[in-house]
């Protein structure tokens, strides 16, 4: 118990930085996740994070660890647009292309880390699962995270109704004059930025969980778009708080701890969703004549 208290007492500015960056990244990822999952683009988030790993490896070979974002951002951005275009063009082969890109990036990234003269396994582990020592988060990282989340949040508020329309029914959206391609690209771009920022703390592999889990959990418990968005955002923040705290208590890397909490949250949400459907099924069975049936009988 004293351990736990001392953790809180000793929260330094660096931990505050980690909390700010982590919460903002969680928030952005959860919002983007809803549309990505519903548009069947989950694989894109995953592919991007793998490309991010490759990009970090390149930064490490070039020995510009602190400015790694300058390398990884353009690379991941480019990958996002390529993946989006591939996905639009042909469904099946687009899928295969994403798999090729993500395994390829991991393989090449791992080999590159061998070339760089850091500690090989420590470096690979850090960029896949996030840095265990949050000391590595720079103040500039925090400001970039704040800037990006302002952009993501503004985009979601300004374009909320269009994002709904494009996600729900692309053909109809296009017929009503919405520029569908622009929104797909915007989504890809914002996802790329979120992945790059989240990577350092949460880890390249773990970040795609941050995108996909909150949306999936939210969709178990609620069936309206707006409430899925809100639930997803709230769950993501709560899971981050629990996960981060957990990682401090057991001295683990934050990435895996946060995702583990997300897994638990998903299981709980699934259970709640299952109980809800069962309850509704029982209720509709007890109503013998539905008003709709009466209408039909007339």
């Amino acid at each position, binding site marked *: 118990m004293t351990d736990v208290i001392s953790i809180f007492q000793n929260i330094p500015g660096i931990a505050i930085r980690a909390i700010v960056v982590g919460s903002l990244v969680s928030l952005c990822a959860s919002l983007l996740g809803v549309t990505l999952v519903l548009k069947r683009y989950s694989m894109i988030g995953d592919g991007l994070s793998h490309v991010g790993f490759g990009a970090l490896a390149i930064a490490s070979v070039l020995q510009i660890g602190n400015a790694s974002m300058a390398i990884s951002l353009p690379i991941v951005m480019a990958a996002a647009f390529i993946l989006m275009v591939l996905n639009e063009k042909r469904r099946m082969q687009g899928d295969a292309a994403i798999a090729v890109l993500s395994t390829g990036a991991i393989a090449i990234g791992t080999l590159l880390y061998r070339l760089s003269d850091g500690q090989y396994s420590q470096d690979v582990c850090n960029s896949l699962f996030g840095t265990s020592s949050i000391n590595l988060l720079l103040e500039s990282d925090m400001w970039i995270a704040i800037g990006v989340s302002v952009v993501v949040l503004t985009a979601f508020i300004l374009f909320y109704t269009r994002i709904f329309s494009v996600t729900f*029914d692309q053909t109809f959206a296009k017929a009503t004059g919405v520029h569908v391609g622009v929104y797909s690209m915007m989504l890809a771009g914002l996802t790329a930025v979120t992945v790059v920022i989240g990577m350092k703390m949460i880890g390249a592999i773990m970040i795609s969980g941050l995108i996909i889990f909150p949306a999936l959990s939210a969709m178990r418990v609620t*069936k309206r778009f707006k409430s899925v968005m809100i639930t997803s955002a709230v769950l993501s923040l709560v899971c981050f708080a629990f996960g981060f705290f957990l990682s401090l208590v057991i001295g683990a890397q934050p990435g895996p701890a946060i995702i583990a909490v997300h897994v638990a949250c998903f299981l709980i949400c699934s259970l709640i969703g299952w109980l809800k459907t069962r309850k509704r099924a029982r209720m509709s069975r007890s109503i013998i004549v539905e008003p709709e049936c009466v209408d039909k009988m007339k």
Partner: protein
Amino acid sequence: MAILTFENVGLAYGGVSVAHDVSFRVNAGEFWGIIGENGSGKTTLMKALLGLIPCASGRIVMGEGLKPNEIGYLPQQSAIQKDFPASVEEVVLSGTIGYRGWKPFYGRRERAIADGNMEKLGLLPLKKDSFQELSGGQQQRVLLARALCATKKCLVLDEPTTGLDPVVTAEFYRMVREINKNGMTVIMVSHDVEEAVKCCSHILHLSCHPLFIGTTAEYKNSPVGRKYLQENAL
């Protein structure tokens, strides 16, 4: 003045021709049925009309102030995910996007239009319900309401009753006829010739090029129409 004029329209996917020499005029208030075998280019023709794909040749001219993004569209079923988390209201409101300008949220005017259309189709009691939990017929009605929100003049329905049982289908056609009687121009793609002949004022029978263009009464007495109706009756 015709609301829509198709002038020698030809359609193609990647250079492969799908339909050619489609010329006809739709006057305001008419109810056109587009019929033909699967793969005869009906959906493609509607997509060209909506500006989703370009015409390979010829052109489609709109009259009476109709704009391409002011046509209400009910896409063929496969296009929509039936397990999407959305409320009936959210789906219907999304029909108003075309003429809303850059306002980020739905205003009072959009909500009034959506409510009006939901009322017309008896959807108000389901307003807050989840779209994915509705029956197939109710989902089609929601999508019809959304299409109505997108237009004041012209409605395009692509095989709207596929997969619905006969009772629900009849009810759906009744609603569309009602909408048409109130002045809406309707273009309905259908593989159900019997129903099309019952509902529509005009028929376009497509088979890569038009086999028949004219009023329903003429169609019933034309060689094409008699042959097709007989085949379907068997």
